[in-house]
């Protein structure tokens, strides 16, 4: 294609007057301005504040950290940035282990949620229209009560004198210690976040073209084979979306490990709380929060990429 052809194509495009171009651009900006300023005010500004505090050091007073800017005399300003909080996060094994432990707990809980959530979503997607709405309702129903109360209620099931142990007791089984263990934390996370796994997978499966399954069967594939090579790959975007929705909040989870976990449940959310409240060390707590954000954003970006790759593959 020569330059002249290209020129010709451009000429064929509808010409806009300067006025039209300006209003069009302004309209776009105006539309995008609302979410952008929301993001700036409620994410970027607080993030900058937290980042600033993470570069200070602890001091007992109000506020409980040193100022970054100090006026040494009338004409000069001194900027003091302390990196000690970040160094501490690297040198003190507590933080590294807490991050790793959080990621491992969140990942395990995500896998369990997937193993339970996928069959649920599959079943709901395959049921008749009348049942489907009822089943979906049942998945969403727990959200009608406070999250805190639901987690608290779980403890009445798992405690030594709770529902499960009372039931086991009827068969002469010694009470099991379930509370204040990692088991209870997994139960809590999976129970709380399961709907976030079920809904995206369901949305994906319900749109699945039945003709593809028929085609697979016509070509001689058994149901299991059809599931592995047709249904599962097509529902991958839903699986990834659901996994992200479970994994990300689970890493930073504080309430569940506090109410259900024991001293052995090492999670970064609890470390952050301890730094902030028990130790009144806001700068250290801020540094933990910043690093946590990075730790969460990284897997998120990777998963997002994997998802995009799958979606692109579908469109091709």
């Amino acid at each position, binding site marked *: 294609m020569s330059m002249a052809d290209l020129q010709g194509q451009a000429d064929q495009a509808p010409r806009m007057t300067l006025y039209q171009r300006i209003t069009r651009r302004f309209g776009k900006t105006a539309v995008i301005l609302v979410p952008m300023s929301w993001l700036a005010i409620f994410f970027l500004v607080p993030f900058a504040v937290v980042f600033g505090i993470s570069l200070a050091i602890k001091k007992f007073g109000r506020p409980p950290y040193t100022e970054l800017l100090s006026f040494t005399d009338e004409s000069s300003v001194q900027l003091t940035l302390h990196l000690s909080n970040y160094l501490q996060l690297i040198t003190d094994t507590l933080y590294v282990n*807490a991050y790793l432990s959080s990621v491992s707990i969140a990942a395990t809980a995500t896998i369990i949620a997937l193993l339970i959530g996928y069959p649920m979503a599959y079943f709901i997607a395959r049921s008749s229209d009348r049942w489907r709405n009822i089943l979906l309702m049942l998945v969403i129903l727990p959200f009608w009560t406070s999250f805190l109360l639901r987690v608290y209620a779980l403890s009445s099931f798992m405690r030594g004198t709770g529902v499960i142990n009372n039931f086991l007791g009827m068969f002469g089984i010694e009470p099991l210690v379930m509370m204040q263990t990692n088991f209870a934390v997994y139960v809590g996370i999976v129970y709380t976040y399961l709907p976030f796994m079920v809904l995206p997978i369901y949305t994906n499966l319900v749109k699945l073209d039945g003709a593809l399954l028929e085609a697979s069967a016509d070509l001689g594939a058994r149901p299991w084979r059809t599931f592995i090579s047709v249904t599962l790959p097509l529902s991958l975007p839903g699986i990834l979306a659901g996994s992200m929705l479970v994994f990300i909040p689970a890493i930073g989870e504080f309430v569940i490990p506090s*109410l259900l976990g024991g001293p052995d449940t090492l999670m970064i959310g609890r470390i952050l709380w301890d730094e902030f*409240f*028990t130790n009144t060390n806001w700068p250290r707590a801020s540094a933990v929060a910043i690093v946590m954000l990075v730790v969460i954003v990284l897997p998120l970006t990777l998963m997002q990429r994997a998802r995009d790759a799958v979606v692109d593959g579908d469109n091709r």
Partner: protein
Amino acid sequence: MQKSLLLAASLTLLATTSALGQGVVNVYNWSDYIDEEMLTLFTEETGIQINYDVFDSNEIVEAKLLAGNSGYDVVVPSGFFLSRQIEAGLFQPLDKSKLPNIGNMDPAIMEATAVHDPGNEYALDYMWGTTGLGYNVQALQERLGEDANLNTWDLLFDVDTVSKLADCGVTILDAPNEAFAAALNYLGLDPNSESEEDLAAAEELLTSIRPYVRYYGSSQYIDDLGNGEICLAHGYSGDIFIALYAAEEAGADFEIGYSIPEEGAVKWFDMFAIPADAPNPDNAHTFINFMLRADVAAANVNYVYYASGNLAAQEMIDPEVLEDPSIYPTPEVDAKTFVLVARSPEFSELMTRAWTRIKTGQ
């Protein structure tokens, strides 16, 4: 020192009244720490509305005060937290001309709290108590023998003993100041010691019993002790009494006991103070003065089972409360209690790090 049903959840109680225009007073107190009828009475008498919020740990109060603009007019931190908060300028001096009921205060308590607040300038005692051991009598006797001594820190700090209790549940307050003071005292060291060697010794002791600890917490143990979920709790006196009465009311087949162990225990004071940036300091004074009234103080003691710093109230306090040595200790027991003083920031840092190490095993 008290608890709430849900961790760090706060309950806002709006006392209703027809009298308007007298403004409000925002009170931040330990949970389950007041006879709520007294709040209604206050509003009826003064026309001032009360916003009553509750907390379950000193650390939370301190975090809110340090952040500033907490909006509270009256807060009730414990003495050893209060002293460093006074130094940091978080409180305003009390205007004693607005507190005529101050004469009701027990001079001995005023003298004792002057350790935290020299000259009693910033704070007045609301209640005081001890930090000891609460236990399920039957569960302990079953495991340690009928005539086991339940009046000793050996229950918690002796590995042979505590390991026998691990199966029925042992808990420790998630409060490094309290836990280290108890451990130091058990080792025969100064509970207020700031020596690193002593800290290391206490850390070793606390680490040695960690495998037998169900959890570290400051409020959950009340419910758990009361319904037989745990059998030994390092906790605040009045909290253990809440568990005791809860178990009694539920008709439990066990009894709850509380000991100020013979080796000694922490004695603490919860103090009324007015934040420097309180929006309604006048109403704050009116509220504190009301709480210092003999009949009001007595009603609160009869309700929460903590000892009051109010001497005039004593004749209206139920004899069974006043004569209970675990609430109002006998002079012999009282002689073994000790008061914590504020730690230096440097030592606090070491201690809280050691505490994290103990709790997490990291």
